[in-house]
């Protein structure tokens, strides 16, 4: 049974690339391009992992993360934040919102994959 990953990014180049690479490796992906859609998809689709940008239209990745982590139904879903915001305060805010990992852009796909796999085995 392949793992289901929710990929969230408003930049199509990024989400499309991640989706292509992950599916090539056998993952099942759901793509969302704003915060609201990401939240709905996480609640409805129950992904195994959420890989999400922080700066998103309608609702930020940090807010979506917080809401997910406060809802017992989704609190266990690992959330990896992948953001161009690399200031320590920004990173801290993400972690405070309950993110399980905060990756700063630019990150290579092998690096992202390694992070995803670290949650898989957990």
């Amino acid at each position, binding site marked *: 049974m392949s793992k289901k990953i929710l990929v969230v990014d408003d930049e199509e180049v990024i989400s499309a*690339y991640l989706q292509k690479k992950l599916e090539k490796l056998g993952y099942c992906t759901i793509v969302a391009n704003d915060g609201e859609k990401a939240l709905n998809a996480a609640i409805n689709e129950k992904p195994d992992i959420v890989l999400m940008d922080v700066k998103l239209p309608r609702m930020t990745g940090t807010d979506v993360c917080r809401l997910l982590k406060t809802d017992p139904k989704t609190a266990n879903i690992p959330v990896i934040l992948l953001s*161009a915001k690399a200031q320590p305060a920004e990173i801290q805010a993400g972690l405070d919102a309950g993110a399980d990992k905060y990756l700063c*852009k*630019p990150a290579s796909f092998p690096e992202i994959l390694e992070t995803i796999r670290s949650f898989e085995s957990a």
Partner: protein
Amino acid sequence: MQDEQLRRLLQQYIFNLEDAQEKAEELSAANEGLQRTTEFFKAVLNCTPHGICLVKRHTFQWCSPAFTEILGWTQQDLPALSILGICSCRSDFDEIEAYLNSADAGVFLHGEFNFMHKDGRVIACILSARPLDTHDRSRGHVFSFTDFTELKAARDICRNRAEELQLSNQQLNREIAERAKAEAALNEYKEHLEELVAKRTEQLNETNRRLLQAQKMEAVGTLAGGIAHDFNNLLTGIRGYASLMLHGMESDHVHFDKLKLIEEMVKSASDLTSQLLGFARGGKYVLKTIDLNELLQKSAAMFCRARHEITTHLNTGKKPVLVEADRTQMEQVLLNLYMNAWQAMPRGGEMTISCKSLQLDETEAARHNLAPGHYAAMSVSDKGVGMDEATMRRIFEPFFTTKDMGRGTGLGLASAYGIIINHHGTIEVESRKWVGSTFTVFLPISNAQAPSIAEAAESEVAKGAGTILLVDDQPMLLNVGKELLELLGYRAITAQSGAKAIECYLKERDAIDVVILDMIMPVLNGHDTYLQLKAINPKIKVLLCSGYSIDSHASELIQLGCNGFLQKPFDLNELSKALKDIIN
């Protein structure tokens, strides 16, 4: 913010780079695969014995080394070479052209074709062709050529062998069937072997018995003939003198009745010798084509007029049944058979007479001791006392009779037997005691036309004139003959031997009108005497005379021109008639 923007751009750049790198790796892998495939196909094309070509718009674009090996054309020749140009016959050309011009995606080509080798030879090939792209035939066609020359020769040999094999198989089957048939026949034959042996032995015994019987009959026949001959000579004398004494004698003369009785007894004796001669083998008769049906009808009617107690059934067809036979002799045979039937039915009864023609094949003919052929079969059946096997075996022997002493001579059936055998036929008897007997006569059918029947009218004594040379070794016969001739008005000269006859004829050739020549004489017989007389005068008139019936010598002389035959004993009437016939 600037840092964030930069990071975002960098992220896109990294992902693009990664993507490009991956594509490059994929392409490289694909390229390597392609190269391997190309190498594989190249190796395949180089090692396959099938010549592969690419043809576009009828022209060769590329060819494999095998193609050059098969047809001699090299890659350099290709630009000027058309696939249709190397076809060696019109039908191949048409078929390939039709394929190339077809727009139907599903049309392929496969078959035997003949192509021109570069050196001019014709090479038989198995050709396969299909479009490079079935959706776009304009992209060209791949042709595969397989050298079929040797295979074709081998195939032809195989076909011939197969045909030969089939033929020999058929032959073998036929032989097997025949063998099976023969075996079945053999088995059946084996089963009936004992029966067949017994039957064959019986047949052999029967043939043996018949042979002995025939030999016996022949010996007796010769004896009977000799006796009859001498007897006829004696009777001729007695008859002649009786005729001479009666001639001019008044009927109230004291010896008239006695002489008449002598004449009658001589007549009976003459009938007896005639029966004997009929039986005697070797004699020939005056053969004419006669219709047995007509003969049977007449003879049966005549016989029934005299024997009212016998009812006769006549089964003869309307179509004539013709045979070559002596009519008088045949009448004698029939009379003997009728007499036999009548005597077998002392209280009267039914006699059935029938006649038919039939074809006897080899087996049937052998059963009757005859040569195969077409025969007339006439039979006389009675419902009389019949006879047992022992009697049947001896029934044709002369002087064998079942009748009381004095009632029959025992010559009737023997005479019938002799006559029929002499006519190249046979006579057979079937009989059952107290049931009846059937006598069947087989005679060879004649192919001649039906005869016209002319009954000889009884003639009066006809007097004549002229000189007759009478030749006989018996002085008594010369005397009586001379007197008879003179009584008839002729001048008679006599000669007691052939030599004297010739001497006489040389002296008086102009005066002699007719020579009466006896057949049986010592030293120079009638036959040789005639030949010498004929040499002196080819137009000489000769009347043959014998105590035998006409035999083969006499028949030959008649053929050579002899003018007639006079059977001894003769009377005045017969002598005068015979002479008149010749002189006139």
